[in-house]
């Protein structure tokens, strides 16, 4: 479990040093913030996919619910983190629990499709919020304040908050998976019937796991909307969910830190290719196909191949 773990630690350390080592231009800081926030969302999805075996194609919706909670509170004059965070996390968790309660009753392909359907519902709900921009999206009046201070407007502070929360979500997800709760989740992933035979009902465990992943995605949503000071229904589209899944796969399913690597590589690749050509997706698409076909264990599989 711990092999190769030096790589994500190295990546986090590099992110910690980067602003001090000269990478502090606004463009670079924006890019790093985006990478760290997406990494957080990807870790929460990896917890679901790799940990609980629940392949969700609607995870971007949870991120979006968190982001829209911030936007709606902002429009009504609530910008303090003490109010915004609990509401956003709660909203994302409740969304995940409600949709999960139905989705987890199904399995396999049906689960993928029903999470996609719920994601689409959230997407269309967001486009119907005419008071908050509808299709065009909503621009924040101000970033979330921490105890009255405009902390998040300081680029450096925002950078370290993102980094800290990313590390925290990795730690929390790892601890959860290693706990008794996580062991039941993993057992049910490997073989639900055997898990039932030894006396566990997978459903409540999976549902709670789904809710926790949703809440973590909600935190990523809060950061994402603060990073861009803008939210639009596009944040919830199924293509975003597909990209999050790609980060998880690229990094390697079954290792939470794989998702961090996957997200960093994804954002880096996307930015680099977009600079090369406006038609970068023509390179990106085949790269995705090749990485899925050839790179079975993901990037994590390269540095720490599994045995047995």
């Amino acid at each position: 479990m711990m092999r190769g773990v030096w790589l994500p630690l190295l990546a986090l350390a590099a992110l910690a040093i980067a602003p001090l080592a000269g990478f502090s231009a606004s463009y670079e800081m924006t890019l790093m913030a985006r990478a760290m926030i997406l990494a957080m969302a990807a870790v929460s999805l990896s917890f679901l996919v790799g940990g609980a075996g629940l392949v969700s194609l609607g995870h971007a919706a949870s991120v979006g619910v968190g982001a829209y909670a911030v936007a709606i509170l902002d429009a009504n004059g609530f910008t303090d983190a003490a109010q915004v965070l609990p509401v956003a996390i709660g909203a994302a968790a409740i969304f995940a629990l409600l949709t999960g309660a139905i989705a987890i009753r199904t399995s396999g392909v049906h689960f993928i499709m029903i999470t996609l359907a719920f994601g689409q519902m959230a997407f269309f709900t967001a486009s119907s919020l005419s008071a908050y921009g509808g299709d065009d999206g909503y621009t924040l009046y101000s970033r979330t304040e921490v105890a009255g201070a405009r902390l998040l407007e300081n680029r450096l502070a925002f950078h370290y908050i993102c980094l800290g929360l990313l590390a925290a979500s990795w730690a929390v997800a790892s601890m959860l998976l290693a706990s008794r709760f996580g062991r039941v989740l993993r057992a049910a992933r490997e073989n639900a019937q055997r898990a039932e035979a030894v006396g566990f009902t997978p459903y409540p465990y999976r549902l709670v796991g789904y809710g926790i992943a949703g809440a973590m995605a909600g935190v990523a949503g809060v950061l994402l909307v603060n990073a861009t000071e803008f939210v639009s229904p596009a944040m919830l589209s199924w293509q975003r969910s597909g990209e999050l899944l790609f980060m998880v796969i690229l990094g390697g399913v079954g290792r939470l830190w794989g998702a961090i690597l996957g997200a960093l590589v994804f954002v880096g690749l996307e930015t680099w290719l977009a600079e090369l050509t406006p038609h970068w997706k023509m390179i990106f698409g085949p790269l995705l196909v090749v990485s899925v076909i050839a790179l079975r264990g993901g990037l994590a599989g390269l540095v720490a191949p599994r045995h047995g």
Partner: protein
Amino acid sequence: MTTQLLLVQALNGLQLGILLFLVAAGLTLVFGVMDFINLAHGVQYMLGAYLGASLAAATGSFWWGLVLALPAALLAGLLLEVLVFRHLYARDHLAQVLATFGVILFLNEGVKLVWGAAPLQVPIPALLQGGVEIMPGLQYPIYRIAVLVAGVATACGLWWLVERTRAGMLVRAGASNAPMVSALGVDIGRLFTLVFAFGAMLAGFAGVLAGPIFSVEPGMGDNVLILAFVVIVIGGIGSIRGAFIAALLVGLIDTLGKSLMPDLMRLFLDASAARQTGAALASMLVYIAMAAILAFRPAGLFPVRA
């Protein structure tokens, strides 16, 4: 809401349903027989529309465009199968979702590169221009009726192919138990390729038909793909009959919802808010229907596998 408008919207809904069925038929067979999630099925619909549009423009005739686009769509499907999909049959659904997502990115962008980002207009063929009076004082475009007829005819042909021919029997057998069919000495790999190419051609056919009605633009396949997935999940994966019924259901719910919901919302909201909220709610209706059906019948309306 008058009866006339309701009738027109119902016809539009059926016609959307028929197009969805043409896309979903290939998808449900590929899904049912090979247990393979092909997100790239929607771009095959888009490719069909583009091929039809540009071949029609090149030959000066919609009909030549249609005739030439079908084998071209078939070839494109075969090419994708050999290059990408073949390597994914043995992999899990997650890998299939992602690799085919990559194909979508590539083809959506490729279409932009070749044909530009602006939508193409496809003229309605001269033979099918104008409208007919379906009720006193109510004209309905002939072309849309022709699409309905062509779709129903294709559905009948497909039914005959699947229910009454040897190839269809193998496909049905494959959908209920592929390893068993293979064990009985059928070259399942060749059957997969055949089903695949045929499905791609059907999606392409739907794309050509849709050309003169909807605008032909990059990404046009994405929405159709998601709706087609809803159709096959509601209908029961692998079931042609289920796909047909679910496609008409989804087409009707979507179209009628979009025309009725804004009016319904006006009872509670002011005009502009009602339009926006109504449209969004209407878009959600099919997903609500799908979630409801899956919650009570997790295997869809007409499950193939026991």
